[in-house]
C-alpha cells in the first residue's frame, strides 16, 4: 500500500514537474513575442546609431623624427603603413607608420630619403589636391620641379607562418624625367606657386615680382612619327595692382584664383591656355575678418577662405543672372586663426590647424563642427589624413603621432536630414534626396524631408478616399443592413484586405493610370454624379407605391444601388470624351499643363490615392464596423423608443458612443497607408519632389527603402539612413497602433460596463 502511494507520488511529481516546466516554457514563448518587437526596435537603433556618433581620435603610434621644423608637407599612402614628408630643404623622406616584422620595419624608421632639389634654389612650394598627390618646388630660376611619391605593393611569404604578407615599397618620382619645367620665361625667381595636373596636362600659377601672376600650362603632345611625348608650354602673364598673397589652381585646370588681401581674383583658363578674368570675390572683412588663406575643398567645387578671426568661410559657384558666380555660403568657427587647412580625399571634411596649435575637424555640407581640441599635449603643427580617412598623422616639434580617426558619417547630421541644406552647385538651400551617382567625389544628399513629405502626401490622398467610403460603409453595414445581407457583405469586403497589394499596385500602374489619363473628366463626373444619383434614386424610391417600396427596405438599399452606381459610372465614362471635346478642346492634359500650369504625370497621386484607398478601406471598415455593431442595443432602442428617427439615433447616440472605435479604425488605416510599399512603388514615378499637386507623383519612405536598399553598401551612410527611414516608419506606426489599441481597449471596458 505504502509503495503504491509512493509510486503515485513519484508519478505525480513527474506530472507536476512537467506542469511547471510547461508553465515556464509557455511563459517564455509568450515573452518571446515581446522580445521580437524589442529586437526589431533595438536592432534598427543599433544600425542607425553610428551616424550620430561624434568623431573620436585614438593615438596608435608615436615616434620622433629629426629636423622636423623643416617640414613643408606630410603625406600617407592608402594602407596607412608608410608616411612621407617633404622638407623645405628639398628632401623627400619616407618613414614607416607601423611596425612590420617581415621587412624589419619599426614605426618611425626612415625607409628612404632623397634630395630632389638642392636647398639654396628653392623659393616656393605647392601641392595638388590630395587625390592627385603631386608636389612642386618653385625655384629661383623661374622653373619648377614636380615630384610624386609612388608605392608598389608586393606579396611575400612570411618565413614563420607561411602566410602571404603585403609589403609596400615606396619611391619618389620626379616628373619630366627629373628635369625642371619652365614657369617663368624671363627666368625670375618664383615667389609663390600653385600647381595642379589632370594626368597629361599640368598647370602652374606663380607669383613673380610681387604682383605679376604667371599662368603656365603644359600639354603633352605626341610626336606621331616617333611616338614620343613632349610637354609643350603656353605662357601667360597678368599683372595685378597689389601683392598677391595666395594662389590656387583647380584640378580641372580651368580656373586660377589669386588672393590679394580681401580680394580674390578668379581667372578662367581656356583649353589652349588663354586667360580671362572672370570675377572678383570680395571678402566681407567687417563681418568675417581679414582673409588669411585660400584652399580648395575635395571635389574642387568649393573654396575655403581662412580669416584672422578664426573663421573659415566656404564659397562656391551659384547660378545667377550674370552666369555662375562665387558666393559666400557658410562659415565655421575654428576658435583661433587658422594657419593651415588639409582636406580629405573624397569627402567634404576638412582639418584645420590653428595658431594656438588646436586641431579642428569640420564637414562643410552638414555644417558640422565635428571636433575641436588638442589631441597632442603640445600644439599641432602639421596634420595629414590618409586616402581612406581612417588615420591622421600629426606633427608637433619632432614628434609624429598616428591617430586612428573614427569619422564614418560626417555628412549625416540631424539638421542635414531635416533642414534645408545648400549643396554645392545648387542655387539655394533646399531639401534634396539624391543618394547615389556614378562619380567618386559626388556629394550624397540625404534630406529625409521630401520622402517623409511623399509618405504623408500618399497617405493623405489615400485617406481622403478611404475614410468617407470606409466609414460610411461600416456604419451602414453595422447599423442599417439586414443581417441576412450583412452575413455576405462583411466577409466580401474583408477579403479585399487579403488581396496582395502587389496586384493592386500592378492594376493601379498599368490599368488604372492610363484610364485616368484618358478619362479624367469621366472620373470627376463619377465623383459628382454618383452621390447625386444615389440621392435621386432614394427620393424616387420613397415616392413609389408602398407595396413596391417594401420589397426593398433600407436594409437592402445597398444591393439596389449596385446597378445604379454601375450605370452612372458607365455613363460618366461614356460622357468623358464628349466633355473633353466641349470644355477642354479635346485634350485635358494639354489644358492642365498649358492653361493651369499643373504638371500631369501618368502615374500620379490620384492613382495612388484610389489604389491605396482600396487597400485601406477594408482595415477601416472592419474595425469601425465592429465598433458600431457592438454598441449596446438598448441604447439605440431607447433612443428610437423616444421618437428619434434612425438617422438621429445613429448620429446622436450610436456614432457618439462608437467614436473611439471609429477613431482607432482611422488610426489603423493611417498606419497601413503610411507603411504600404508595393502600391506606391508601382503606381508612382518615385520622384522625390515636394508638391501637393494631385497629378504628380511622390516617393515615400517605404518605396525608397525598397528601391535603394538592395544596392546600398553595407555599413555606409546610405545604408544607415535607409535603416533610419525604416526606424521612422516603425516608430510612426508604433505610435498610431498603440494609440488605436488603447482607445479600443477603453471602449471595450466601457461597453462591458453598460
Amino acid at each position: 500500500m505504502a509503495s503504491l502511494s509512493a509510486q503515485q507520488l513519484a508519478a505525480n511529481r513527474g506530472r507536476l514537474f512537467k506542469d511547471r516546466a510547461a508553465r515556464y516554457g509557455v511563459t517564455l514563448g509568450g515573452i518571446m513575442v515581446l522580445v521580437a518587437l524589442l529586437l526589431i526596435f533595438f536592432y534598427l537603433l543599433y544600425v542607425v546609431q553610428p551616424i550620430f556618433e561624434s568623431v573620436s581620435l585614438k593615438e596608435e603610434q608615436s615616434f620622433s623624427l629629426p629636423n622636423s621644423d623643416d617640414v613643408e608637407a606630410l603625406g600617407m599612402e592608402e594602407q596607412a603603413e608608410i608616411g612621407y614628408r617633404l622638407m623645405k630643404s628639398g628632401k623627400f623622406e619616407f618613414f614607416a607608420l607601423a611596425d612590420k616584422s617581415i621587412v624589419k620595419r619599426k614605426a618611425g624608421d626612415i625607409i628612404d630619403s632623397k634630395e630632389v632639389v638642392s636647398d639654396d634654389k628653392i623659393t616656393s612650394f605647392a601641392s595638388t589636391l590630395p587625390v592627385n598627390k603631386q608636389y612642386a618646388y618653385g625655384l629661383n630660376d623661374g622653373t619648377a620641379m614636380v615630384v610624386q611619391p609612388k608605392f608598389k605593393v608586393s606579396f611575400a611569404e612570411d618565413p614563420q607562418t607561411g602566410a602571404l604578407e603585403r609589403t609596400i615599397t615606396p619611391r619618389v618620382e620626379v616628373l619630366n624625367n627629373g628635369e625642371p619645367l619652365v614657369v617663368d620665361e624671363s627666368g625670375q625667381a618664383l615667389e609663390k606657386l600653385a600647381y595642379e595636373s589632370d594626368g597629361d596636362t599640368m598647370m602652374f600659377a606663380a607669383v613673380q615680382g610681387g604682383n605679376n601672376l604667371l599662368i603656365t600650362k603644359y600639354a603633352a603632345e605626341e610626336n606621331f612619327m616617333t611616338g614620343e611625348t613632349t610637354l609643350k608650354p603656353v605662357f601667360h602673364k597678368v599683372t595685378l595692382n597689389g601683392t598677391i598673397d595666395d594662389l590656387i589652381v583647380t584640378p580641372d585646370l580651368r580656373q586660377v584664383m589669386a588672393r590679394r588681401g580681401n580680394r580674390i581674383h578668379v581667372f578662367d583658363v581656356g583649353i589652349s591656355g588663354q586667360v580671362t578674368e572672370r570675377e572678383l570675390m570680395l571678402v566681407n572683412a567687417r563681418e568675417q575678418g581679414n582673409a588669411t588663406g585660400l584652399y580648395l575643398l575635395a571635389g574642387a567645387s568649393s573654396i575655403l577662405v581662412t580669416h584672422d578671426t578664426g573663421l573659415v568661410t566656404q564659397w562656391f559657384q551659384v547660378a545667377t543672372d550674370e552666369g555662375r558666380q562665387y558666393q559666400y555660403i557658410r562659415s565655421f568657427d575654428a576658435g583661433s586663426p587658422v594657419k593651415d587647412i588639409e582636406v580629405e580625399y573624397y569627402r567634404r571634411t576638412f582639418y584645420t590647424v590653428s595658431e594656438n596649435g588646436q586641431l579642428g575637424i569640420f564637414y562643410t555640407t552638414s555644417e558640422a563642427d565635428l571636433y575641436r581640441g588638442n589631441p597632442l599635449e603640445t600644439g599641432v603643427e602639421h596634420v595629414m589624413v590618409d586616402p581612406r580617412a581612417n588615420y591622421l598623422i600629426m606633427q608637433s616639434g619632432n614628434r609624429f603621432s598616428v591617430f586612428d580617426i573614427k569619422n564614418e558619417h560626417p555628412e549625416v547630421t540631424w539638421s542635414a536630414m531635416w533642414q534645408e541644406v545648400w549643396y554645392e552647385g545648387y542655387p539655394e538651400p533646399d531639401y534634396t534626396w539624391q543618394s547615389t551617382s556614378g562619380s567618386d567625389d559626388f556629394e550624397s544628399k540625404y534630406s529625409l524631408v521630401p520622402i517623409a513629405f511623399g509618405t504623408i502626401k500618399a497617405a493623405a490622398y489615400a485617406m481622403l478616399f478611404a475614410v468617407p467610403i470606409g466609414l460610411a460603409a461600416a456604419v451602414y453595414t453595422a447599423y442599417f443592413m439586414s443581417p441576412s445581407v450583412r452575413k455576405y457583405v462583411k466577409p466580401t469586403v474583408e477579403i479585399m484586405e487579403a488581396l496582395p497589394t502587389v496586384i493592386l499596385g500592378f492594376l493601379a500602374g498599368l490599368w488604372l493610370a492610363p484610364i485616368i489619363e484618358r478619362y479624367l473628366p469621366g472620373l470627376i463626373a463619377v465623383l459628382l454624379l454618383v452621390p447625386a444619383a444615389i440621392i435621386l434614386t432614394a427620393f424616387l424610391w420613397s415616392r413609389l407605391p408602398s407595396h413596391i417600396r417594401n420589397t426593398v427596405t433600407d436594409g437592402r438599399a445597398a444591393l439596389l444601388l449596385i446597378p445604379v452606381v454601375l450605370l452612372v459610372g458607365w455613363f460618366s465614362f461614356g460622357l468623358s470624351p464628349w466633355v473633353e471635346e466641349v470644355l477642354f478642346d479635346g485634350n485635358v492634359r494639354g489644358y492642365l499643363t498649358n492653361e493651369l500650369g499643373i504638371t500631369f504625370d501618368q502615374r500620379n497621386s490620384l492613382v495612388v490615392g484610389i489604389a491605396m484607398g482600396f487597400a485601406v478601406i477594408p482595415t477601416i471598415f472592419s474595425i469601425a464596423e465592429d465598433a458600431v455593431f457592438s454598441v449596446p442595443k438598448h441604447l439605440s432602442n431607447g433612443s428610437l423608443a423616444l421618437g428619434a428617427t434612425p438617422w438621429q439615433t445613429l448620429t446622436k447616440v450610436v456614432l457618439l458612443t462608437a467614436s473611439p472605435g471609429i477613431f482607432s479604425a482611422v488610426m489603423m488605416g493611417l498606419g497601413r497607408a503610411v507603411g504600404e510599399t508595393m502600391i506606391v512603388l508601382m503606381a508612382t514615378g518615385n520622384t522625390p519632389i515636394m508638391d501637393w499637386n494631385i497629378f504628380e507623383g511622390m516617393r515615400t519612405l517605404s518605396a525608397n527603402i525598397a528601391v535603394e536598399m538592395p544596392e546600398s553598401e553595407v555599413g555606409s551612410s546610405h545604408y544607415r539612413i535607409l535603416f533610419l527611414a525604416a526606424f521612422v516608419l516603425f516608430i510612426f506606426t508604433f505610435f498610431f497602433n498603440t494609440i488605436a489599441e488603447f482607445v479600443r481597449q477603453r471602449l471595450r471596458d466601457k461597453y462591458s460596463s453598460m
Partner: protein
Amino acid sequence: MNKWFKSGKPWIWLTAGSVSVSLIAVVGLVLMIGWRGLSFFWPSAIHEMSIEQADGSTRTLIGEIYESESVPTSRVSDAGTIMDGYEGEKVTRYLMKIGNREYVPLDFAWVLGPAIRADETPAGLAVIERTKDGNFYGYPVAIEQQGERVATQGNLREELFQRMERAVELNEKAMALQEGEIGAINYELTQLNLQRRGLELSGSLTEEAINDIEQRREQLQSQYLEYEKELFALRDKAGRDSLIMRDMRGEEIKVPMYQVLDVNFPNDMGFFAKLGHFFQQIGKFVSEPPREANTEGGVFPAIFGTVFMVLLMSIIVAPFGVIAAVYLHEYAGKNAVTKLIRIAVINLAGVPSIVYGVFGLGFFVYMVGGSLDQIFYPEALPNPTFGTPGVLWSAVTLAILTLPVVIVATEEGLSRIPPTLREGSLSLGATKWETIWRIVLPMASPAIMTGLILAVARAAGEVAPLMLVGVVKSAPMLPVDGNFPYFHLDRKFMHLGFHIYDVGFQSPNVEAARPLVYATSFLLITIIVGLNLTAIGVRNHLREKYRSLEH
C-alpha cells in the same frame, strides 16, 4: 421633399451607396483579373487582314487582335488618305499581335478600322509557339528533313504534329539530361572545390587528400564528357527537321523544329477543341518554367518557390504563435507584462512589412547569416553561403511578420472553448498542462489551422520584404533538387507576387508580358482568396460547434 431630407433617408442611402461602391470594387476587381487572366489561355482567331497604308498601298497583316479601342476621329485625323471619306465621329483602333519578332521591327501593330480592306480567318493559318522570339504566325508550307522537303500539302499536318512531338520529346530528354545528370556533376565539382578549400583552411590538406580529390574530379570530368556527347547527339537529332512557313510578307521562312513547342490552327478549332486547348494551356502555365526573360512560358518555379517558402515559414511560425497564444489566454495574469505583450502583438501586426524586410536583411542576412558563414562555411568565403538573401531568411522574416495572425486566430479559438471543459478536466485531477495538451489544444486545432491558413495567405501575397531578403526575378535552381542535402535553404527563389511586379514593371516587353501578368495575378488571387475562404469556413464551422457545446 424637405421633410424627406430631414428624416435622414438620403444620408442612409448615401452610406448604402458606399457599401455598393466597395462591393463593386472588390467583385469587379476579382472578375476583371479573372477575365483578363483566363482569356489569355483561350485560343483567339488569327486574322489575315489587308490594310491600306497612308501612301495608298496595301499590305497584309497576319496576327491576333490583341486589344481594340474607339477614339474620336479628330485624334487620328493625321493618318492621311485612309480616313478620306470616313464620316463617323469615332473610329475603332485595333492592336494586332503579329509575332514573327525577328522579321518585323515591332511585334505589335496598330490598325485603324477604316483602313481594313479585307479581313479573313483562313483555317490554314497556324500559330507556332517557339522557345525563342515568341510566336510565329503564318501558313505551313512544307517540312524539311536535312534540307530535303519530305512533306507538302497533302500529309503536312499529320507529319507536322508527328515530327513536332518527336522534337519536343528529344528536347525534353536533352533538358532532363542537362538539369539532372550534368547538373549533378557540376554541383559535385563545386563541392569538391569547397572541400579542398576547407581542408586547406583547416591545415589538413595532405598529398593523399589532394590526390583523392583530383582523382574524383577526373572521374567526374570524364563522366561529364560522356553526358555531353549524349547531349550533343540528342540535340543533333532534334535539329533534323525544320518547318517551312509562309509569313505575312509572302516569304518562305524556315523554322527549325527544335525551336517549336507547339503548333495550333485556332481558326480550324471547334468549341470543344478550343476548350481542350484552353485547359492544356493552363496546365502548361502552371507546370512550365518561364522563357524569354519571364515574358513567356509558365510560372512553375515561382509557384514552387512561393509554396516552399510558405511551408518553411509555417513550420517556424506555428509553434511560436501557438505557444504565445496559449500563454496569453491560459497563463498570463492581469499584469503589466501581459499588457506589454498584447501591445507587442498589435504592433507586430501593424508594423509596415518593408520594415520587416529591412530588419531581416540587416539582422538575419548580414548578422546571423554572416556569422554562420564564418563558423560553418569558411571554405566558401568570400562568397557568402547564408550571408546573402535566401529562402531561409525570407521564411524567417515572414514568420515574424505573420506571427500576430497566428496568435490572434489561435487565441480566438481558445476563448471559444467553454471554460466548463477546462474545469471538468482540472477537477478530475489533471494538471493545467495536461488539460491544455489533452483537452484544450486538440479542440483548438481548427482555430490554429485557421491562423496558419491566414498566415500562409498573407505570406503568399507579401512582396516588399521579400525583395530585400531573398526573392529574385529568375532562379535557375530550385531550392529543392536531387543533390544532397536536397533542401538548399541558402538559395534564392522566385515568388508569384514578385513575378507580377517584375514582369509588369521591369520587363523589356511590357505589352507582350501583360496577359501573363494578369494570368499570374489571377493565379495568386485564386490561391489567396481560396485560402481565406477556407479559413473563414473553418472558423464558422468551429463557432457553430462550440455554440452547441455551451448548452
